[in-house]
């Protein structure tokens, strides 16, 4: 005989250790089953797009750091590409290689954080997260060597980067890449074939590729459904045409596939960095101030530039009226748009899968709310 239950509405967040920031959900449960979900945003809204209208193009770099604060370098890169497209700036080759190295390191750090917290949400308290964070720490040390900052880097400038890497950076980078591979091997040895991980993540929150594309979802979530769409490959920016890497695809489109794609992409990033180290050549890291002045005044017009961020397509739309600050800046935030299907993923699922599914989306509240 089935026991009659009554739906209960539960508030989750904004202060909750599993919500990856200040995210809030109003969830209706019927027993253990989720019947309705309403996400509520805005607890970290700082009005970055409005602030950008009052700052010069170089000053805005610091605002982009604070959007997705676990992938600052990638935010810098997307913004700088939009500025270069708008103002017609030709970047310096060494600067481009350096920013590719920096952004691929950042992608590894971001994927490690996503993986670590996903396993934390699965109930693997501590250990995998500490493994992942230890490795991210080494990457942050490398960032400290090249730009003096660890999280809010502001390393990129229109036309390249603001300073060259010191000589001791290169041996440290080589050692760091070996450590990254070792950590990923370690993580995978414990987790990628783990029976508990399988039983908790396989077959949960499955989404069809058509639905993902229709909902504008990009990045590892889309590639976990078997769609070969990576902007580094399909619309190469910077020097991605000159490096070879595999696009790792999984067809299951469940929580495990999303975890697996991120781990494999971190490995591919190591390969990309190694090729960058081989191809980098001496020279200036940014054009001289005669070519690219400190105060840039792009001609009136607009430009949209997108990169393959750690969470998906990260785009910046800039409108210029010929002045020293943009007339309008818009960020195509992949974290926010990837949440479009949150209801579809959660409704009908179990309470225990809620945070696992949420963790597999890999969002960052700094980018959701901006």
């Amino acid at each position, binding site marked *: 005989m089935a026991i009659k239950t009554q739906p209960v509405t539960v508030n989750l967040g904004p202060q909750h250790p599993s919500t990856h920031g200040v995210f809030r959900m109003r969830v209706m449960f019927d027993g253990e089953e989720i019947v309705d979900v309403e996400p509520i945003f*805005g607890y970290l809204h700082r009005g970055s797009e409005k602030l950008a209208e009052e700052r010069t193009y170089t000053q805005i770099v610091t605002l982009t750091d604070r959007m997705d604060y676990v992938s600052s370098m990638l935010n810098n890169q997307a913004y700088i590409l939009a500025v270069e497209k708008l103002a017609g700036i030709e970047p310096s080759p060494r600067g481009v290689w350096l920013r590719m190295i920096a952004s691929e390191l950042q992608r590894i750090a971001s994927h490690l954080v996503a993986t670590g917290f996903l396993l934390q949400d699965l109930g693997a308290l501590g250990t995998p997260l500490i493994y992942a964070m230890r490795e991210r720490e080494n990457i942050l040390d490398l960032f400290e060597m090249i730009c003096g900052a660890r999280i809010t880097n502001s390393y990129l400038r229109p036309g390249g980067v603001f300073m060259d890497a010191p000589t001791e950076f290169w041996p440290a980078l080589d050692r760091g890449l070996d450590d990254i591979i070792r950590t990923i091997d370690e993580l995978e040895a414990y987790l990628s074939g783990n029976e508990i991980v399988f039983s908790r993540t396989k077959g949960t929150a499955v989404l069809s590729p058509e639905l993902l*594309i*229709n909902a504008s979802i990009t990045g590892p979530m889309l590639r976990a459904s078997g769609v070969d769409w990576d902007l580094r490959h399909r619309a190469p920016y910077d020097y991605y045409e000159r490096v070879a890497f595999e696009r790792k695809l999984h067809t299951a489109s469940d929580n495990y596939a999303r975890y697996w794609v991120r781990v494999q992409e971190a490995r591919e990033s190591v390969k990309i960095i190694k090729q960058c180290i081989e191809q980098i050549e001496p020279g200036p890291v940014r054009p001289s101030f005669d070519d690219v002045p400190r105060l840039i005044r792009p001609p009136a017009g607009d430009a949209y530039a997108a990169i393959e961020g750690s969470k998906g397509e990260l785009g910046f739309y800039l409108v210029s009226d010929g002045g020293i600050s943009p007339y309008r800046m818009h960020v195509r935030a992949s974290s926010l748009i990837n949440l479009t*299907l949150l209801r579809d993923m959660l409704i009908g699922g179990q309470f225990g899968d809620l945070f696992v599914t949420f963790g597999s989306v890999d969002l960052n509240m700094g980018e959701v709310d901006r």
Partner: protein
Amino acid sequence: MTTAWSGSALAEAIEAFAPGSVESSAGGDVWLKPECISGVCEGLKTRDEFKFDLLSSLTAVDFIDHFEVVYHLTSLPMNASAVVKSRVGLGRTDASIPSVVSVWRGADYQEREVWDLMGIRFEGHPNHKRIMLWEGYPGHPLRKDYVTYDQSIVSAPDDAVTVAIEGDE
């Protein structure tokens, strides 16, 4: 490499299946009449010559005398991109445009964000609510004539508590 549609080619192709919907075109942009937007977008998504199955970005710009809604479209099968724009709220009147959520679900949160911060209504949106700010927040901050809270305190202390709530239910 993604190929970008030029404005004139796209305008011609749109006119071929939806006559009278294009306002003008220049560079890489096409301006559509706002009332035609959902029909044209349906065609851009489903017709074989376009196949724009991914809505990359949806945003809006305040040009003082009018607003411009900007759609960045991507076609995964054709590896192509296009920019579609639409002028709404001419003369700074009540701005509204048909929603494209029925075409691309990815427009859901982006349209809510534009409504919240720019104050453009999306007719037919299934959940037309603010997203970043709370219901009852005075005004839409990304508009160029928005007076920030701090300024209202400094310049006119009496007005600080009676800021007009415009456009909110």
